[in-house]
């Protein structure tokens, strides 16, 4: 057998292919390790760029990318003897079948692993480069390389290799191998679909043939420290996955080996049956004359002939089995991804059409690009492959017709595939019982916009094939073109979509707003690219190969002549293209502007360098604002004027007013559209580029004095943009907040670059995300973390919009009237609030209800009425709980207002809660099972809670303040939910929260903070917040907990600065927590604490009528530092021990037979209980209240001794 292995090795070592593949892999990984621009499978964050876990994950990703290479090796090894005809010699020589079969296999597998070793090469070389930042790298840790090879490189090559090798040996058909490779990919993609649902995670772990899913499950709670130190070891589901798939691969190999034989090989010969005539033709039978058929239409062109050609070419594609199989695989992939519409917390969503379209794009488009790549070559080379080209070329058929019939055939085929996907989409929607199909949205998205985009690709693919006239180079050139086109423009910092081939401004379809603001840009950019493609068609056509003259220079000369002949037509299109291009340029570059991310960041940097000096300068603060807003939704125009009053609340005189202009302001085009009028003040600095102004007052503003300021701004939409911006202002669903239109006073820290690595690269000093938690830092306590130029402000608004829309501003509606075909509304805020509110206008349906004099309102669109009653219910229940437990609600209304899905969030403003259309309005709550979470109810309760936590009690601009807004809001929502749905429902919710926290800290970019110091860290203040607050409530009691919150409100609600810090809250908890539980405040709020609780053994013995249960447990407690480095600390904790009866629900525990909160001080403990019912489960911290990275081993089935 060795001679076959060594033959394969020697053969491949001499081929350039192997070394090219190795080079490609090495370069990719080298690039990812040594630069910031290249990423493989997502960035690495704060982990060292050569950390063992990173190297291992590169092995994982590369083993997927190398699937193509593996296919090449396996196919070539398996088929070489056949394609070269050598098999007749090989098989007739005295060799053993298994030597041949396995020898070649082993040789090919060994070779296929070699390119993957480029991962190690790249990862070792990268850090040695002179340009890298040394602090981003750790020492070389070999176990990353080892486990990458052991867990991915070898098994994945064996898995893919076995399948591909056996397919190649048995079917001897490239196409079958290709399909095999696709199948593996489909398995992978399907399994990825299950990862978002915690309940189905195990399925993903098992189904993924490459083992990614299992790896990410295994590592998702790993801290940075751990990721820097070790790779994931083969254990648990990861090990099972690797064993199962490798085992399957080997079984397949064995099974196919039995089918393999030297004799029945030449399937092609078998298949082919040569016809042979029996009759002989006598000369005398034939007419002596050959009848003449003259062509009566010497023009050579007719539509019917053209149509015949198109049909003929289209059939070539669609009747081909590869096409059919590829489309089928794509459809299966699509159907698999359509089987679940899962949003947050595992909740289902209605399959709205735009979502289905996104699924189609995700599941199918790679296949379509593959089809275009493959079939452009097939069609162009069809005649030459069939060796019929000489006949065709010598016929009088026009080259133009030959070319365009191929082009149209490609377009047709893609169109047919797209229509199939739409049918699948509609069927899927029907299967969900959803019947609002919106065929026009399907057609516009897929059959028009996407179809055009595919058309451009087809034209370019044909161009490459005709121009290059070498199929493989042309394939390569096309793929390289797509890839280069994908990144080159951002690398060159060219952001114009006029250069990025085939690109158009991105479009987000919204149920509320349709294609809204994107339409005109789409039309013009598509016209531009279509004209461009037509010109490309002329070139491709001119280079068409007719006859034997394939020399490029000859064809170039000939092409010149052809183009000259077509000049009238061509110049017409050239003129149209130039005109269209000019118009697009005028709209995107002259009427509007755009800047690259780089340029934007450069401005951020300059802003910081230039104006940070003013950060702590005393500025007056807004106290009263009167808005006059006119929205012209259909023109996308906006006129805002604000009469504001500012007061000098500081102790010093103020001479200068510093203004940051809002995001609607764009100096380059909207010259002087921001007017600021201040009595007796002169504009002393007007930095248009950085949008900063300084006005100097003639008379300094004395402490306590007030100053009226008038501000006017206009946002007009002119033409179309390179990329539609400010979608906040739109046809149906205008939704912007005061920061969008109103200048802020003083230096704005929020404009600084925040990313740690980026700052380092741009040579900016290290920046704190938020100031340290320090009660004596009065400067930071002078502001909330929301705004820096005001405290509690009085707001009145007069807002107008078109007559078919409703406009909403903060507060109560005082007046409503119509004038000149427009609707006017006047709103007054009932209670002075934070200077943070929104203005909204759309065609709404309104659902109204009253709860104790408070208006409950939901503004929504007709198609999204599903959850409106639920929202009203949640508002009502929230108000009940909050007013009873926390304190009064100060507004006269609670509004939930739907806005288009250009943003996807729900946000709380005073009395008003805008809620994105994709977030809760289309959540499907029809089949909520007993452990499902009602996300809609939850989010409303959370936003309602913000009316207290943020809009009454708001923390200083300092670490930890978000705990008082977000963690308290999470707690409040949990309590409302618990009251509505019962305790059991909380478990799934908390499970997701725990998961979110643990994986969030694993991806932390800078440093994990304890809860009371959270700084812009959602996974801490939302998710850890839920877990911790709920547990704290469990320990100190709901009533006690709520009293603490109520007292905090009493002390701090609507208070002028200094604003409270999280220390006030921590103190309040301390004061109301019994001595025995004081440790909880340390553990939960002040430090990062983790547990490792586990049941070692659990058994029972029947004693008379009763059962004696013995539980052996193991517990550890850790403190973690900001990088996740753990150190053990002694236990002195109350932990729950429970014994549970049998239950039918697999996801929940049964009735507790014993449930005790016991003080645990030892690591190993043994507990004995007597229970009257047969025990089923036993556990330590069975409900997972404590933070534990392995929550599943807390409970164990009880066995009989």
């Amino acid at each position, binding site marked *: 057998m060795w001679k076959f292995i060594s033959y394969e090795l020697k053969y491949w070592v001499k081929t350039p292919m192997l070394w090219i593949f190795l080079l490609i892999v090495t370069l990719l990984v080298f690039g990812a390790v040594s630069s910031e621009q290249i990423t493989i499978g997502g960035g690495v964050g704060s982990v060292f760029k050569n950390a063992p876990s990173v190297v291992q994950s590169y092995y994982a990703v590369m083993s997927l990318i190398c699937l193509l290479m593996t296919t090449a090796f396996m196919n070539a090894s398996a088929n070489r003897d056949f394609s070269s005809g050598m098999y007749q010699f090989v098989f007739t020589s005295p060799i053993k079948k298994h030597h041949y079969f396995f020898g070649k296999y082993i040789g090919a597998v060994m070779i296929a692993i070699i390119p993957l070793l480029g991962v190690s090469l790249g990862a070792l070389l990268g850090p040695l480069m002179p340009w890298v930042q040394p602090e981003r790298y750790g020492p070389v840790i070999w176990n990353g390389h080892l486990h990458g090879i052991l867990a991915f490189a070898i098994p994945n090559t064996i898995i893919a290799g076995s399948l591909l090798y056996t397919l190649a040996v048995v079917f001897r058909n490239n196409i079958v191998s290709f399909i095999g490779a696709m199948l593996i990919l489909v398995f992978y993609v399907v399994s990825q679909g299950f990862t978002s649902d915690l309940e189905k995670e195990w399925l993903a772990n098992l189904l993924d043939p490459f083992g990614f899913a299992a790896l990410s499950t295994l590592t998702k709670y790993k801290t940075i420290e751990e990721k820097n130190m070790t790779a994931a070891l083969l254990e648990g589901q990861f090990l099972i996955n690797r064993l199962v798939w490798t085992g399957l691969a080997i079984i397949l190999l064995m099974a196919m080996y039995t089918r393999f034989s030297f004799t029945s090989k030449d399937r092609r010969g078998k298949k082919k049956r040569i016809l042979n005539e029996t009759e002989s033709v006598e000369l005398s039978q034939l007419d002596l004359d050959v009848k003449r058929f003259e062509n009566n239409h010497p023009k050579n062109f007719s539509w*019917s002939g053209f149509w015949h050609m198109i049909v003929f070419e289209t059939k070539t594609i669609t009747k081909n089995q590869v096409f059919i199989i590829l489309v089928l695989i794509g459809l299966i992939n699509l159907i698999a991804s359509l089987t679940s519409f899962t949003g947050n917390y595992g909740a289902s969503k209605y399959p709205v059409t735009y979502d289905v379209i996104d699924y189609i794009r995700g599941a199918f488009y790679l296949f379509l690009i593959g089809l275009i790549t493959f079939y452009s070559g097939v069609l162009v080379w069809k005649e030459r492959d069939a060796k019929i080209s000489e006949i065709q070329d010598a016929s009088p058929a026009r080259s133009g017709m030959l070319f365009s019939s191929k082009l149209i055939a490609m377009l047709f085929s893609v169109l047919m595939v797209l229509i199939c996907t739409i049918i699948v989409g509609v069927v899927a929607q029907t299967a969900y019982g959803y019947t609002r199909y919106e065929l026009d949205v399907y057609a516009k998205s897929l059959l028009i916009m996407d179809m055009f985009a595919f058309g451009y690709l087809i034209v370019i693919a044909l161009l490459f094939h005709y121009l290059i006239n070498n199929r493989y180079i042309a394939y390569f050139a096309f793929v390289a073109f797509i890839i280069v086109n994908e990144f080159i423009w951002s690398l060159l910092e060219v952001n114009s979509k006029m250069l990025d081939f085939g690109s158009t401004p991105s479009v987000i379809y919204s149920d509320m707003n349709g294609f809204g603001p994107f339409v005109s840009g789409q039309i013009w950019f598509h016209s531009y690219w279509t004209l461009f493609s037509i010109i490309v068609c002329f070139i491709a056509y001119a280079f068409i190969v007719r*006859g034997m003259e394939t020399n490029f220079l000859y064809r170039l000369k000939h092409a010149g002549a052809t183009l000259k002949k077509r000049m009238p037509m061509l110049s017409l299109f050239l003129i149209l293209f130039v005109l269209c291009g000019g118009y697009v340029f005028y709209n995107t570059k002259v009427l509007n502007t755009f800047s690259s991310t780089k340029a934007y960041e450069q401005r951020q940097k300059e802003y910081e360098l230039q104006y940070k000096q003013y950060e702590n300068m005393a500025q007056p603060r807004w106290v009263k604002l009167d808005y006059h807003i006119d929205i012209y939704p259909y023109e996308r125009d906006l006129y805002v004027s604000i009469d504001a009053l500012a007061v000098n609340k500081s102790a010093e005189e103020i001479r200068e007013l510093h203004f940051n202009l809002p995001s609607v302001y764009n100096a380059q085009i909207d010259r002087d559209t921001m007017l600021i009028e201040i009595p007796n003040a002169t504009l002393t600095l007007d930095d248009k580029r950085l949008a900063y102004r300084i006005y100097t007052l003639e008379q300094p503003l004395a402490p306590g004095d007030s100053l009226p300021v008038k501000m006017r701004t206009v946002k007009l939409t002119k033409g179309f943009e390179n990329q539609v911006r400010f979608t906040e202002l739109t046809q149906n669903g205008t939704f912007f907040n005061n920061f969008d239109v109103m200048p802020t006073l003083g230096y704005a820290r929020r404009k600084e670059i925040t990313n740690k690595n980026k700052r380092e690269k741009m040579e900016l000093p290290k920046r704190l995300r938020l100031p340290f938690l320090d009660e004596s830092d009065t400067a930071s306590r002078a502001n909330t973390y929301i705004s820096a130029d005001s405290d509690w402000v009085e707001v009145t608004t007069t807002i107008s919009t078109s007559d078919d829309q409703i406009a909403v501003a903060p507060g109560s509606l005082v007046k409503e009237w119509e004038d000149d075909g427009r609707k006017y509304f006047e709103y007054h805020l009932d209670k002075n609030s934070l200077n943070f509110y929104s203005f909204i206008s759309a065609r709404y349906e309104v659902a109204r209800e009253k709860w104790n004099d408070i208006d409950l309102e939901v503004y929504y669109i007709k198609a999204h009425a599903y959850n409106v009653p639920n929202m009203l219910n949640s508002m009502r229940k929230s108000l009940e709980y909050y007013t009873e437990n926390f304190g009064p609600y100060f507004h006269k209304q609670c509004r939930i207002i739907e806005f288009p899905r250009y943003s996807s969030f729900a946000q709380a403003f005073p009395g008003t809660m805008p809620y994105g259309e994709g977030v809760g309005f289309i959540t499907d709550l029809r089949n909520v099972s007993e452990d499902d979470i009602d996300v809609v109810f939850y989010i409303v309760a959370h936003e309602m809670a913000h009316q207290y936590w943020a809009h009454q009690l708001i923390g200083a601009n300092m670490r930890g303040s978000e705990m008082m807004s977000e963690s308290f809001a999470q707690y409040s929502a949990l309590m409302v939910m618990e009251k509505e749905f019962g305790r059991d429902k909380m478990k799934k919710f908390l499970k997701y929260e725990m998961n979110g926290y643990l994986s969030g800290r694993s991806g932390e970019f800078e440093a994990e903070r304890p809860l009371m110091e959270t700084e812009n860290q959602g996974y801490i203040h939302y998710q850890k917040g839920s877990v911790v607050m709920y547990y704290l409530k469990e320990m100190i009691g709901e009533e006690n907990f709520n009293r603490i919150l109520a007292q905090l409100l009493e002390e701090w609600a609507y208070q002028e600065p200094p604003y409270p810090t999280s220390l006030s809250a921590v103190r309040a908890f301390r004061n109301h927590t019994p001595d025995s539980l004081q440790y909880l405040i340390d553990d939960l709020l002040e430090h990062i604490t983790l547990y490792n609780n586990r049941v070692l053994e659990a058994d029972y013995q029947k004693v008379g009528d009763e059962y004696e249960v013995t539980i052996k447990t193991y517990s550890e407690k850790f403190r973690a530092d900001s990088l996740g480095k753990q150190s053990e600390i002694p236990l002195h904790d109350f932990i729950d021990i429970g014994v549970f009866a049998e239950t039918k629900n697999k996801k929940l525990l049964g009735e507790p037979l014993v449930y005790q909160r016991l003080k645990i001080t030892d690591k190993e403990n043994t507990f004995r209980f007597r229970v009257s019912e047969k025990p089923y489960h036993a556990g330590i911290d069975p409900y997972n209240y404590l933070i534990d990275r392995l929550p599943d081993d807390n409970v164990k089935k009880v066995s009989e001794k």
Partner: protein
Amino acid sequence: MQLSITNLNKRYSNGVLALDDVSLHIEKGMFGLLGPNGAGKSSLMRTLATLQEADSGSASLGDIDVLKQKDAVRKVLGYLPQEFGVYPRTSAHDLLHHLAVLKGFNDKKERSEMVDYLLNKVNLFEHRKKAVSSYSGGMRQRFGIAQCLIGSPKLVIVDEPTAGLDPGERNRFYNILSEIGEQVIVILSTHIVQDVRELCTQMAIMDHGKVLFSGSTDDALTQIKGKVWEKSVEKAELKSYQEQYKVISNKLVGGKPQIHVFSEMPMNSGFQPAEESLEDVFFAKIHNLV
């Protein structure tokens, strides 16, 4: 209508001189183009079939400038390349229809009538539903002829059509070809002397891109009449004979080499006069003996 070729030259990019000052004059009827492999026959045919350019020289078919007015040539051309394939899984009927569309027969009824007639003509009508790729060599060549005849061409070019056909198939093929030859110009290139002998009255011999002879087959034979002598020799003697005489050819007859020798003078010492054949003309020409 006649085809005249004047001083045609073509050199390939690899330096091979494919056509070296080729001039021919071809009238209606079968014209045989004889030459060994690589003589330039196919280059000439392809040039005439508009598939290849010439470096210099001219060719005209009646009023048509073959080198410049390609479209005009294509309209009156029937071309059967040396090697041709077909689309997989496509029946003769469908393929012929397709090719007829390429030749501009857009009217469906007219086209169907012609396709059926042609299939009948070449005796493939009963096999018309079968894939052409499953045809035997002879059937496939007859299909090739059928497609040649679409639209009643005035110039038919068939390049090495009989290679690989068994004798029966070859005969059938000749029958069809000869019929066509009665009406239009048919150029038949071949390296098989017998083909020309049986079918053509006019012929040319080519080698290394040059025309070594052109004229009627009878003229050709006259050139060597009485000047070819044959003798059976031992294998060992072969070399010395080749040095001594102008050996036209040697072949095995009954396992023993038989040589043909060119000599203006009568020969003795065991040489017998050989019956003059085109084959001898062919070899004599390419060995530059005449």
